[in-house]
């Protein structure tokens, strides 16, 4: 029923590539793991946030007197309690970030914070937040890119001129910026094609949907410093952004990472943290702030809704000759949609000789978007991989053969600039083509679809410390929050490097005072980049261990080898010294055995995936059942295959939800109609089959173990794969997400 192929063809390792139990697993199956909302400090207050009921309004006044007079209320914070970064001449992005935390003169979406309260109980805090009287003057709002770009549309930011337009505009608009990627001769490209199609696509904002709502605890002292305990994808970033918003230096904050209950990009930015710190400084007591699920939906995330126009040409023998793409992405209330990444990834799978890709970042009266797993790529892939499938049908060629014919390979100049080193896109296509699933007949009443996806993966800044304890066991300490099992990979790297049992390695993610700087856990970077630094530390220590053995034996270091967890003399005349032996005598050979290293790691390996779905389609109801799903993804090297599969499966299932159900539904007054898991329906177990995984391993030449990063690419193809399956099963093409039963039924009923 399910085929899970073990990775093959890589060098043989003892620990790397094994399925060890994750170091944090025991605490998570016994309820001991401490997530963001689980810390309770003595004397702690509970907080609540007052939020805008309007999508767009001017703030006339804020009256906090009634709230402050309530018994049990210890602090109230408004924008007046934060530095005015605009007045201070701060960077535009920082001003916007500060205004996202607390509205100053206008509210820009329903849910925009205007005040926060700390009180002796959650109930009192909520009552006090509700007792804050805000007088608003409602303004007309815009909810989509079409509304926001229309002539005469209400403008959110009166000083925002579109960047990237020549000549520079003289009047403000909701288009924050325009970015272009182009190559070759578009006219010639379309002239060379035998078939040219033009299509429009729309997508809705969708939320990352992590199960743990945002939460933090702040504990400020009277010395101008504060401790912050927060669930996030990067406590160093939380420190920096919180400090900027407060007008503090980052070093005034020590941020301790909680276990994080899902992020998917959505926990890479601040929401509650400066409010909690400011409430704590005002109250002189610790303050805990926890969002409700409705607040998560209304005021965090999501990713962009979009409007895309795509024109693509192909020859009768399957050569893509040209692509023209226009995209506008909703950024929400402040600039910063992933339209740039969408432009870079749009046709990165392929060698298209002529293209023009134009993207607009557009503000509107919705929550500011946050990163969501391969930000931008799934949105544009929905369009590109859909139109490619229509072209395949038009020229009657197999969709995998067409992709193979146009596939980017080593040496291809990527559509976004650099030349690809060794990559594994072709291998993912071949894995699907050769799978039992693809070779099996399509059952009656089913539709089968294929799509591919790309994500850059990134490296970045990481620091790690490795200690060898006096008993010869190893501690690995990093500053990269673990959102998908990365501690297991760090432990496997150390076990492999030292040649010791993985059970002898412990892992820790340390606070900002204890470990050096780490970038956020994002871009599928941790196993690659933080892993690389852990490996570097281990190798430095192994060198040190050889030196210590050489000192013990009074020989040259070159006469000492490190083999399977022990130092051996090349001559074989000395009794080998194990890690435990060397650790026990460390004080006689130079002191404790410990290394800290940092790096800005380069050499990330591009990630590709090809996916295959069978839908059972009920054309009386429009309901599609995912009958079978196979995903092939190039991991470079799967350090812990179970968690690689887990990333692939999780990404696919988020994509399935995006394809069929998930969307922000706004009322005409600009308020969100479905801020709950009941009405914003993410996939549940009974919606799904097993997700079959084929882990492809084409090593990244720039990583010691060949790692590429696997966290994100999996979410890129599912919407297009499902749309392609629907067309092949019903003859109906849906160009708008979500492809809900009612939309499909409507299309089936109008099919000619």
């Amino acid at each position, binding site marked *: 029923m399910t085929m899970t192929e073990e990775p093959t063809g890589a060098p043989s390792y003892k620990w790397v590539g094994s399925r060890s139990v994750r170091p944090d697993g025991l605490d998570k199956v016994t309820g001991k*793991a401490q997530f963001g909302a689980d810390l*309770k400090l003595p004397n702690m207050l509970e907080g609540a946030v007052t939020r805008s009921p309007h999508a767009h309004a001017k703030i006339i006044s804020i009256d906090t007197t009634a709230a402050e007079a309530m018994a049990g209320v210890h602090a109230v914070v408004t924008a007046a309690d934060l530095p005015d970064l605009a007045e201070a001449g701060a960077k535009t992005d920082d001003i916007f970030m500060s205004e996202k935390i607390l509205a100053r003169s206008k509210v820009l979406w329903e849910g925009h914070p205007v005040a926060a309260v700390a009180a002796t109980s959650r109930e009192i805090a909520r009552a006090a937040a509700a007792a804050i009287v805000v007088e608003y003057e409602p303004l007309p709002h815009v909810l989509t890119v079409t509304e926001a770009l229309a002539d005469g549309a209400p403008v959110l930011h009166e000083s925002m001129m579109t960047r990237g337009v020549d000549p520079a505009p003289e009047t403000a608009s909701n288009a924050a910026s325009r970015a272009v990627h182009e190559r070759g001769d578009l006219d010639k490209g379309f002239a060379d094609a035998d078939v040219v199609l033009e299509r429009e696509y729309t997508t809705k904002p969708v939320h990352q949907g992590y199960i743990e709502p945002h939460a933090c605890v702040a504990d400020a002292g009277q010395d101008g410093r504060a401790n912050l305990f927060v669930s996030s994808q990067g406590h160093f970033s939380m420190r920096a952004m919180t400090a900027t918003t407060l007008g503090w230096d980052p070093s005034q904050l020590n941020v301790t990472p909680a276990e994080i209950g899902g992020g998917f990009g959505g926990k890479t930015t601040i929401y509650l943290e400066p409010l909690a710190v400011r409430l704590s400084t005002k109250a002189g007591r610790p303050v805990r702030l926890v969002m409700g699920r409705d607040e998560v939906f209304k005021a965090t995330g999501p990713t962009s809704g979009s409007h895309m126009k795509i024109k693509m040409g192909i020859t009768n023998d399957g050569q893509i000759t040209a692509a023209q793409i226009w995209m506008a992405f909703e950024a929400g209330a402040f600039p910063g949609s992933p339209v740039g990444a969408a432009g870079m990834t749009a046709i990165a799978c392929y060698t298209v000789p002529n293209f023009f890709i134009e993207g607009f970042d557009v503000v509107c009266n919705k929550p500011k978007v946050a990163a969501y797993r391969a930000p931008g790529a799934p949105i544009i892939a929905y369009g590109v991989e859909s139109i490619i499938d229509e072209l395949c049908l038009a020229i009657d060629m197999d969709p995998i053969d067409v992709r193979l014919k146009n596939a980017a390979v080593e040496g291809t100049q990527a559509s976004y600039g650099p030349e690809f080193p060794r990559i594994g896109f072709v291998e993912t296509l071949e894995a699907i083509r050769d799978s039992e699933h693809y070779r099996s007949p399509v059952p009656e009443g089913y539709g089968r679809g294929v799509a591919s996806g790309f994500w850059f993966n990134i490296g970045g800044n990481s620091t790690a410390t490795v200690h060898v304890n006096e008993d010869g066991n190893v501690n690995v300490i990093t500053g990269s929050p673990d959102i998908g099992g990365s501690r297991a990979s760090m432990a496997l790297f150390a076990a492999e490097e030292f040649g010791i049992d993985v059970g002898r390695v412990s892992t820790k993610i340390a606070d900002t005072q204890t470990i050096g700087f780490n970038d956020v856990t994002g871009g599928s970077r941790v196993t690659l980049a933080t892993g690389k630094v852990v490996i570097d530390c281990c190798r430095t220590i192994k060198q040190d261990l050889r030196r210590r053995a050489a000192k013990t034996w009074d020989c040259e270091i070159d006469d000492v080898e490190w083999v399977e967890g022990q130092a051996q003399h090349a001559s074989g005349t000395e009794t080998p010294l194990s890690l435990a032996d060397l650790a026990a005598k460390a004080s006689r050979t130079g002191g404790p055995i410990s290394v800290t290293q940092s790096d800005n790691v380069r050499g990330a390996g591009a990630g590709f995936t090809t996916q295959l779905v069978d839908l059972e389609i009920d054309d009386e109801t429009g309901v599609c059942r995912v009958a079978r799903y196979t995903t092939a993804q190039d991991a470079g090297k799967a350090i812990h295959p179970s968690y690689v599969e887990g990333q692939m499966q999780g990404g696919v299932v988020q994509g399935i939800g995006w394809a069929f159900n998930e969307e922000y539904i706004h009322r005409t007054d600009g308020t969100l109609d479905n801020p709950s898991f009941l009405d914003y329906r993410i996939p549940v177990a009974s919606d799904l089959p097993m997700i079959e995984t084929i882990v492809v391993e084409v090593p990244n030449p720039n990583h010691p173990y060949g790692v590429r990063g696997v966290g994100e690419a999996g979410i890129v193809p599912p919407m297009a794969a499902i749309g392609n399956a629907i067309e092949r099963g019903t003859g109906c093409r849906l160009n708008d997400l979500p492809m809900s039963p009612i939309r499909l039924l409507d299309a089936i009923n109008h099919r000619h």
Partner: protein
Amino acid sequence: MSRTHVNCEINGDHVDFLSESGASLLNALRDDVGLMGVKEGCGTGDCGACSILMDDRVTCACLIFAPEAEGRTIVTIEGLAAADELHPLQQCFLEGAALQCGVCTPGFLLAAKALLDNNPTPTETEVRYALAGNLCRCTGYDKIIRAVLEAADILAANAATNGDAK
């Protein structure tokens, strides 16, 4: 504000606490009893992260008023393992990589226990429907379903062994 004195059994111990009127059992378990393994994902009964067993039925603690726990027998994640041994479900989740972030895991384990207590040999489809009230955003459910089926096999084998011994 008047408070209600609630007596119940939690994880085998007699527990009593004072409940605010209108407080959910979820908040009481976390704030008054200190059982932080019970997680809040939504507060509206949609995600299952706060699943507990109340008189052997899987229940969202957020949908129960705390005084309703009076006289009831409650099991939370903190009560699932023996002192020196994990429950087979916990062991299978660990070994089968059936968790990523882990915040939904306590709820899944208790919902799965309720299933296996009532239906020791479920089919894959029965497991999927029994766990449909628990949301996981990380795993795509694949490894969770496998872990529950694996645990069912282990429990069945243990029961057979114990049966033979008798």
